[in-house]
């Protein structure tokens, strides 16, 4: 290894910025997972019988399931009985005025840089902040209501819009879907709900911020977004967690439903605590995200920037049911230290003339393992379906791994499917070139990586793209070798 490489490697270990925790008295229910716990959660939230029944069905199904082991990640078995399934800041936050929210909570969100106070929000991002299990405050609710847009916590939606929730909950990700989704269906504690009525373009970007604070708590949130015919919404999701020695579990479910000519743009910047250099601690992130393009000409676009979590297991997918519907997946996954990521997408072409685009950029540093796993499936009726997949991997150093597992299946002779994959390394030549022009090694690496990710960043809303670039730069400090 050249000296240059060594320096780079040393640079790699920038500490996690959001590794602080907030001392807030939390209300927790007893540890462990049982039917009783499911009932307690439901009762705490004052849920209607139908929802409790749904949870119980999920729990009963969960008993029959085994943890899946097909992904390219390894970790000790998760002790589900050792976790708390409900943890809320003790003072039940009132949502009418900020004055009533625990100032420590507000401080937390300030530290995270979330503009919770409305006066700071002239830029126009409505935020639903989820702290451990409970949604703390949804900003801009009134303004959205004027446009007919519903944006609220999942619990509020169950109370205020039960018919909508009942109609769509589990309609894209059924409670039988997979181990983690089933677990989530049984014990989910909160999340976000968005409904965009027919012909409405949501007047602002919607944003949710998740933070896991409490020790040993799992976070199981559900997001449900419905875009009626001709509607449009751009939804942003950000995540952080404090630094803990133990692994915390995050198993979320996101369901999107898009009708005729409607579009949902869903962007995620995930920066959960990744664990330390030795792989201690960090979030286990097992997430099921899926969208159904039910309508003709409907569109779902997933954009994700994943830099955190000890383990990422996540495949935001599109069911392209409507004729001429479009699915997109743009992903940047950066792993370092001992992080493991197994992420990608599924594009299931069902309707005629459906199109999908996959752009995946994996960056591996340290001793991390980064896998792209994608499935493109074209069903019989999907005449003239098209997919273009591009999977690029960038290696930093000699001890990391990049893997690509594309599954392609077509039952339609008229489908056109393309797959391109590249693997490259940041070369000593590139670094020398940049440094000879005066840039520091860190700046050079950051610039090269940002260049590598450009196609994905271009898909992010502007402020998010800047954030994502900075996040990558921070995550990469000292990551090179």
């Amino acid at each position, binding site marked *: 290894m*050249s000296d240059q490489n060594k320096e780079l490697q040393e640079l790699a270990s920038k500490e996690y910025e959001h590794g602080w925790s907030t001392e807030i008295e939390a209300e927790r229910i007893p540890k462990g997972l049982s039917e009783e716990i499911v009932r307690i959660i439901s009762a705490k939230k004052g849920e209607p019988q139908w929802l409790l029944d749904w949870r119980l069905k999920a729990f009963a199904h969960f008993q029959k399931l085994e943890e899946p082991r097909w992904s390219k990640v390894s970790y000790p078995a998760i002790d589900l009985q050792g976790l708390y399934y409900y943890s809320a800041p003790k003072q039940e936050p009132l949502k009418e005025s900020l004055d009533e929210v625990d100032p420590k909570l507000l401080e937390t969100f300030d530290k995270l840089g979330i503009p919770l106070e409305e006066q700071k929000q002239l830029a126009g991002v409505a935020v639903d902040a989820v702290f451990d299990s409970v949604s703390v405050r949804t900003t801009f609710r009134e303004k959205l209501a004027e446009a007919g847009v519903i944006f609220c916590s999942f619990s509020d939606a169950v109370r205020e819009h039960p018919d909508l929730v009942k109609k769509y909950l589990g309609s894209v990700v059924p409670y039988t879907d997979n181990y983690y989704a089933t677990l989530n269906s049984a014990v989910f504690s909160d999340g976000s709900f968005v409904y965009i009525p027919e012909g409405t373009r949501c007047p602002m970007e919607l944003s949710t911020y998740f933070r896991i604070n409490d020790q040993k708590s799992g976070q199981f949130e559900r997001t449900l977004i419905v875009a009626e015919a001709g509607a449009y919404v751009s939804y942003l999701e950000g995540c952080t967690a404090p630094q803990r020695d133990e692994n915390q579990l995050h198993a979320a479910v996101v369901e999107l439903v898009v009708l005729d000519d409607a579009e949902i743009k869903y962007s995620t910047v995930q920066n959960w605590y990744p664990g330390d250099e030795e792989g201690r601690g960090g979030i286990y992130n097992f997430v099921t995200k899926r969208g159904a393009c039910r309508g003709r000409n409907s569109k779902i676009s997933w954009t994700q920037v994943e830099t955190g979590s000890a383990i990422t297991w996540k495949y935001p997918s599109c069911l392209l049911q409507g004729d001429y519907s479009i699915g997109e997946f743009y992903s940047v996954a950066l792993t370092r230290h001992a992080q493991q990521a197994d992420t990608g997408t599924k594009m299931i072409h069902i309707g005629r003339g459906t199109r999908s685009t996959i752009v995946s950029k994996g960056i591996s540093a340290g001793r991390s393992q980064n896998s792209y796993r994608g499935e493109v499936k074209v069903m019989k009726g999907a005449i003239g379906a098209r997919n273009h997949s591009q999977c690029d991997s960038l290696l930093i150093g000699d001890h990391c791994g990049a893997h690509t597992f594309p599954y392609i299946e077509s039952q339609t002779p008229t489908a056109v499917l393309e797959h391109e994959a590249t693997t490259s390394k940041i070369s000593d030549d590139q670094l020398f*070139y940049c440094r*000879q022009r*005066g840039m*520091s090694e860190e700046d050079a690496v950051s*610039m*090269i990586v940002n260049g590598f990710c450009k196609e994905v960043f271009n898909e992010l809303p502007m402020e998010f793209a800047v954030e994502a670039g900075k996040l990558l730069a921070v995550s990469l400090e000292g990551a090179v070798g």
Partner: protein
Amino acid sequence: MLSVKGLKASVGGTEILRGVDLEIRPGEVHAIMGPNGSGKSTLSQIICGRQDYDVTEGEVRFEGEDLLQLPVEERAARGIFLGFQYPIEIPGVSNTYFLRAAVNAVRAARGEEEMDAADFLRHVRAKAKLLELDLALLSRPVNVGFSGGEKKRNEILQMMILEPKLALLDETDSGLDIDALRVVAEGVNALRSAERAIVVVTHYQRLLDYIVPDYVHVLSAGRIIKTGGKELALELEERGYGWLLEEKLQA
């Protein structure tokens, strides 16, 4: 300005430079010529701080300062520029962005303020026009898909923007047709000044018709075996390097 004394360097145990002495003063233009594998590129890479070589003996000073102790980017900030023989491609990073990052990095190192974006762009465009460089290349990724000639002109553009004190041009003429050669040489000549030194590393005398050197050095097997004026280049063109080697052997 640049003082190289008794420089010996090897790579993987093979000695490439076997004692090089070179003095360069402000305002001078030097040409370093020599057969393939004589160590020409190695010399310029070591001056710029490439780590792939082990410097076993000797010293390199720039304005009195021990250059060998400085990291690559600090040498660049002192005003040393290397025009690459094979310019490197950087996918996804626009040429203008790269240039601006370079200029601002060098300015920051010198304690100067960042250059205004609009002024910068005007400046770059003007220089690019001078080099007859297609302006579309400014927004394309650095060197990606550039022709050989475009890459070399792009190197000269970077040099004109960075305005170094010492420019080392490593085989800038290779791969250039006669028109491109003239344009590149004009760019280099435009930078000639009493404060600036230029070192041209080349195989051929051709480039020296346009960039007329004050000194010509012949590097062979890791040593400078002859130094002369511009007429030495013409003599080499006519007679090759063989006679010099024999002369050296007899000496």
